[in-house]
């Protein structure tokens, strides 16, 4: 009796140890749930990846799996300055109309059958032809190519998506590192500003034909509330509501942010710090806004708080960089350093922080 119970005591921890080690090395078949709510089962580990979006490419690179990428969409190729590791990968066509035949050819990779170690990562968009269900249909003739929807665009899904991708790629540790960093930086920004006054903010998404701003339901609205700003368009339900300049003047925002799209032949992130060709363009965009009739009466203009922003840092995995920038911009008195957060983020991607670049114009005064 006694010997039996002792041996049982010895064996139990052993079994527990075995169980632990087997859960650490992911077990196959592995089933995950993607952002579109689909359950996808992997019979073996994923060794080859095709990315249809630059946000997904960024996530794969960030988790250190760039060497597994075998095919990219046109949007990833256009950002090759951001993913030098992916510049030479096979193109599979446009992000919203991929060439499925090419995907099949890449998946086959010289041999006669498709090994089920290949994965296509796309957007969710459940009702669109380029959404995950459309992609799934396009891949249907090839039985063993799996597709998942992971977007990395909305703050509410961000950490979950990184965790899922980490699981799929067997990069749980890297994913957890990023999530810890993200949560830390995000709560640092939140804690620094949450007791301060909320300034009224007008964000201009586009001014080409009509003015459009970012309402409730946009990712920016969530980002702005984390940075403790009040979105004057919050009551406008749509994500990108169209507004009139008269309405903006009446709302009298205390801070104005203007989105400026990047030129198509961009070679680096952000803009060249002034004085440069980039800052001349930015100055012109800012002056156009300042010259609108009635602009002089707006608090933001009187207090000289009109900024042109690089919207790339407000979307995607570097969103927490944008959150820190916004928190600093809205509350100049807080002790936050967006540049160091940005540097830390770029280390995840294995990139150097580019000197003499700027992401906000006019540049913010450094931490006081």
């Amino acid at each position: 009796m006694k010997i039996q119970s002792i041996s049982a005591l010895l064996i139990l921890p052993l079994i527990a140890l075995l169980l632990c080690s087997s859960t650490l090395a992911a077990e196959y078949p592995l089933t995950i749930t993607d952002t579109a709510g689909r359950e996808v089962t992997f019979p073996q580990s994923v060794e080859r990846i095709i990315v249809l979006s630059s946000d997904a490419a960024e996530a794969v690179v960030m988790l250190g799996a760039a060497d597994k990428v075998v095919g990219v969409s046109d949007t990833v190729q256009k950002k090759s300055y951001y993913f030098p590791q992916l510049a030479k990968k096979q193109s599979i066509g446009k992000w919203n109309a991929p060439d499925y035949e090419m995907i099949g050819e890449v998946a086959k990779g010289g041999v006669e059958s498709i090994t089920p170690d290949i994965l296509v990562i796309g957007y969710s968009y459940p009702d669109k032809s380029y959404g995950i269900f459309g992609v799934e249909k396009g891949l249907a003739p090839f039985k063993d190519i799996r597709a998942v929807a992971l977007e990395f665009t909305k703050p509410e899904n961000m950490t979950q998506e990184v965790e899922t991708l980490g699981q799929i790629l067997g990069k749980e540790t890297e994913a957890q590192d990023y999530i810890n960093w993200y949560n830390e930086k995000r709560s640092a920004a939140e804690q620094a500003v949450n007791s301060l006054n909320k300034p009224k903010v007008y964000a201009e998404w586009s001014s080409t034909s009509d003015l459009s701003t970012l309402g409730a339901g946009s990712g920016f609205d969530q980002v702005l509330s984390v940075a403790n700003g009040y979105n004057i368009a919050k009551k406008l339900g749509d994500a990108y509501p169209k507004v009139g300049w008269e309405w903006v003047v009446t709302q009298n925002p205390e801070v104005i942010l203007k989105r400026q799209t990047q030129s198509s032949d961009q070679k680096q992130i952000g803009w060249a710090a002034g004085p440069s060709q980039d800052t001349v363009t930015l100055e012109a965009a800012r002056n156009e806004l300042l010259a609108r009739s009635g602009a002089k009466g707006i608090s933001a203009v009187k207090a000289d708080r009109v900024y042109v922003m690089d919207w790339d840092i407000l979307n995607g995995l570097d969103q927490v960089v944008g959150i820190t920038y916004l928190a600093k911009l809205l509350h100049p008195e807080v002790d936050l350093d967006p540049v160091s957060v940005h540097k830390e983020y770029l280390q995840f991607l294995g990139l150097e922080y580019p000197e003499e670049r700027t992401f906000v114009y006019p540049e913010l005064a450094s931490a006081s």
Partner: protein
Amino acid sequence: MPSGITAKNVLLREKYQQFVGRKMLFLLLLVIVIVLLAGVAATLGSANIGVLDVYSAILARFFPASFQTSWFADTIVWGLRLHRILLSIVAGMGLAIAGAVMQGILKNPLASPFTLGISSAASFGAALAIVLGAGFVGGEWMIIGNAFVFTLLASMTVYGLAKYKGITPETMILAGIAIMYLFQAMTSFLQYVGHAEQVQEVVFWMMGSMGRSSWDKVWIVTAAIAICFPYLLLKSWDINALGAGDETATSLGVNVEKTRVICMMAVSFITASVICFTGTIGFIGLVSPHITRMVIGGDHRFLLPASALVGGLLLLAADTAARTILAPVILPVGIMTAFLGVPFFVYLFMRRKKEFW
């Protein structure tokens, strides 16, 4: 003298027989060219499969005993390429038949399947599904269902409007223009309220694409044509008579109004079943009948089948080019139809000797 007339008659008859022979030859030639082009198109694509592999993959389905194929070649050829090629052919045929009949019954060289506001109605139906997510059926058939229903709705409205003033080409075209502007305005409104990505998808839909093809869509379009085409062919004498004027046609025993209405409905049905799958592919329906007319003349008994073949050939050529020129980027076929068709059209236009309009 009588012998002279008989001799002249015989000569005319001979000439006519010769002309019929030329028409038959043209039809036969078109069929051969389409088969050849389809054969070439099946070998083109991003997947690296040899010409022989492609053909053994095709033949292996018919003669499994004597042909060997690999799983990959079979998947690419049967799963991705062949249904797209066949859909291009039948869609081009449908649009060209519709265009030829429209030009015939409206006696207007500028008429096309889209004259009666059909394309703008279909675009509006698609935009409604894309921007507002509202439709008659749900899921993946929503855009298709909307485009189909609104196309038929537009032609019903044109019919209703024209009915009041008598069904003449003028009333039909005017009613069609009114409908076209109405639906265009409504589509513009939807684009104005829609998000950037939705607007982009509407524009993409309106350019037309073969990317959504599948085997069931091939069968549906083929069935729609198979139902309507024999009837239209049966009516081709009546359409010929209409060309001589409504009074002349009436005195020849043609029920002018009825012919016009039924032909218009058949044409709308064919067009609706094509463009709800492909988007509004312009140009094919307008130009295929003209190209055909320049070669074999305006007799609708030959014009209808020959236009159909020209249309199928044009669309297949355009889609093959769209697939391969910038591969792996696939261009919308609506852009390629005009790029390929216009030079050919201008060539025939500069060379033609006779006036058919």
